[in-house]
């Protein structure tokens, strides 16, 4: 066993982080919120970079590699989400034309879950959905919804005429969802880790009563609790992403655990960041609320935290050895 990123992963993270942070940022997210500015890096740039389609079979990349990139994307609130690409790559497996379209950017794909506005619907032209156990694909009409987190591109989707891509696709759909959960959790990890950095930095600089606020146990211990959660989330993300490629039997539990932990950890990190920053933490100009918005939305994507915890429990009770 070697449960650590390899050198290759670290280099990938470095390169992806450089690419993503060159265009995406909390400031870009704020601009999107203020006047609907385009997402950064945006679908076209993401596709062009190759980072969005690592798991398209032709690319030969792994979900773990995609997760490593997704963490970097989460750090800078990049949009659209790598979740949509990773799910599409699983769902379109065996459909070389559409996969090529996904990889060259000629198809802008979103995956339609039941019940509620759809992730990355805005700007998508091709929608994948599960209907009566069949995987269907087609155009759709998107009604944008007022965003909480503008980088998530949520809109209501009315599917147009669809083509059946696979008849009995429930199993594949679930796998795609689980891969999506791993990637979503990786984005959450990046966002939570970044919030922790911002909070620690502020706690070192800001003084009250003659010393840095981070020297007070009340503040210090809040930050430590976030640190512990973030590191545990990191472990679960790696496990889930690794399992997607190497241990499919572990993927259901690992993906549900990562999804659930991401939801609660990112929320904790965001709420703690606002608290530690005091007054400036809840101003429009500060970055904290942009991550907080991400937290409040992401917890409800790909099933909410409650559903993920429930699934963990069911799997734990059924899978005991």
């Amino acid at each position, binding site marked *: 066993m070697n449960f650590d990123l390899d050198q290759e992963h670290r280099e990938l993270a470095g390169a992806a982080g450089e690419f993503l942070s060159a265009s995406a940022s909390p400031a870009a997210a704020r601009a999107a919120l203020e006047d609907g500015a385009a997402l950064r890096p945006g679908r076209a740039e993401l596709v062009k970079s190759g980072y969005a389609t690592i798991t398209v079979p032709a690319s030969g990349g792994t979900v773990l590699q995609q997760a490593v990139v997704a963490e970097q994307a989460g750090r800078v609130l990049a949009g659209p989400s790598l979740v949509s690409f990773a799910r599409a790559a699983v769902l379109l497996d065996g459909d070389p034309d559409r996969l090529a379209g996904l990889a060259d950017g000629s198809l802008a794909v979103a995956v339609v879950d039941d019940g509620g506005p759809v992730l990355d619907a805005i700007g998508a032209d091709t929608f994948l959905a599960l209907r009566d156990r069949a995987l269907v694909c087609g155009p759709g009409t998107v009604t944008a919804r007022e965003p909480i987190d503008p980088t998530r591109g949520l809109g209501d989707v009315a599917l147009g005429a669809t083509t059946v891509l696979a008849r009995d696709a429930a199993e594949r759909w679930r796998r795609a969802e689980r891969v999506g959960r791993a990637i979503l959790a990786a984005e959450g990890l990046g966002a939570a880790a970044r919030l922790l950095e911002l909070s620690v930095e502020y706690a070192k600089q800001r003084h009250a009563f003659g010393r840095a606020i981070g020297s007070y146990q009340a*503040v210090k211990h809040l930050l430590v609790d976030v640190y512990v959660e973030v590191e545990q989330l990191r472990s679960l993300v790696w496990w889930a992403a690794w399992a997607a490629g190497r241990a499919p039997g572990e993927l259901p539990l690992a993906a549900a655990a990562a999804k659930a932990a991401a939801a609660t950890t990112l929320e904790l990190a965001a709420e703690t960041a606002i*608290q530690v920053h005091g007054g400036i933490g809840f101003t*429009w100009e500060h970055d904290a609320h942009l991550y907080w918005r991400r937290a409040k939305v992401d917890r409800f994507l790909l099933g909410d935290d409650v559903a993920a915890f429930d699934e963990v429990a069911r799997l734990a009770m059924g899978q005991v050895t």
Partner: protein
Amino acid sequence: MDFDDTPDEAVWRASVRAFLSRHRSVDDPRAWQAMLYDAGFVGVAWPVEAGGRGGTPMRQAIVDQEMARLGLPALINLIGIGMCGPTVLMHGSDRQKQRYLKRLLRADDLWCQLFSEPAAGSDLAGLRTRAVRDGGGDWRISGQKVWTTLAHLADYGILLARTDPDAPKHRGLTMFVVDMKAPGVTVRPLRQMNGDAHFNEVFLDDVPVPDAERLGEPGEGWRVALTTLMSERLSLGGGGTPIGPKPEAVARHVAEHIGALPADRQALARQQLGRAYVAALGARYTGYRRLSRLSRGELPGPEASAGKLSGTRSARDLTDLAVRVLGGDARVGTTPDGDRTWQNMQAVLPGMAIAGGSDQVLRNIIGERVLGLPAEPRVDKGADRR
């Protein structure tokens, strides 16, 4: 012990209720407050000579309860009534009381509170705004304040400034009444994370303030400020009024939506509602106990901060549930029929949790002043405050 109204209280409640049901609320918030004042419902417990009605805190509480029951709009000059007014009442000269208090209660003048600064939040006594005496014994104030509610509308503000930079931190402060229309006062709105601008930054550039507008003696500002802060605590959850949403409103909202959830989710929603609701009830009834003690003439003590501590937590959890029961719509800012109540509440609460003292500061106050636990060693005795 008796929750029921005394006969006197019952008569009062009936008259309040009768008046309020006869009179619709008025759109202009100043006119609304003036109407209520003229009806005898504002400043009920203030002394008559300060423009009040010389009644009991319980009578005022009854007015507040009846207004809440009817869902009537709150008074615009809340900061003035809850914090500035009591400070002027306790520390102002006769002339100041005469000049300001009745007009404050009628919302003829609006008031704000200029305490916090960019570098002095929890550590309020570390503030740097300077007031310097001129040749004639009057003052010039320069500095920057922040998180000032209503500053963009206010006619007056109470302002805490450093008048003696060489004195120990808590000794060199003085309180003033500042004319917000005076030359040198610049107000700039500050947007919160939900996009609204309820707060302001206030820049003071050599603002002239007559010595007659001092509140209390020079160097006594900290003691004066404690009056204000004590009153603030009581108004922030300390008297039984909820912070954030009314628990009943959340329960009603959940009741409307819970039927659409699967049975499992209904059980979980009820647990979350039950837990937050019990906390809210606990805070409410603890506030009533405080109110009862106040009615007997006791001063509000540090334990009033407890209401804010638990109130912000239950408000958060109640609001979280209110958002969750929206289902898929919880991911976006408005429901299909345009309702943004709960999403907006969710984005406002983090600010409410910090205004009026962070959880950390409030816990220190209760731990030291109520439980009698020793304070931490202080390292800021000789810090530079220039």
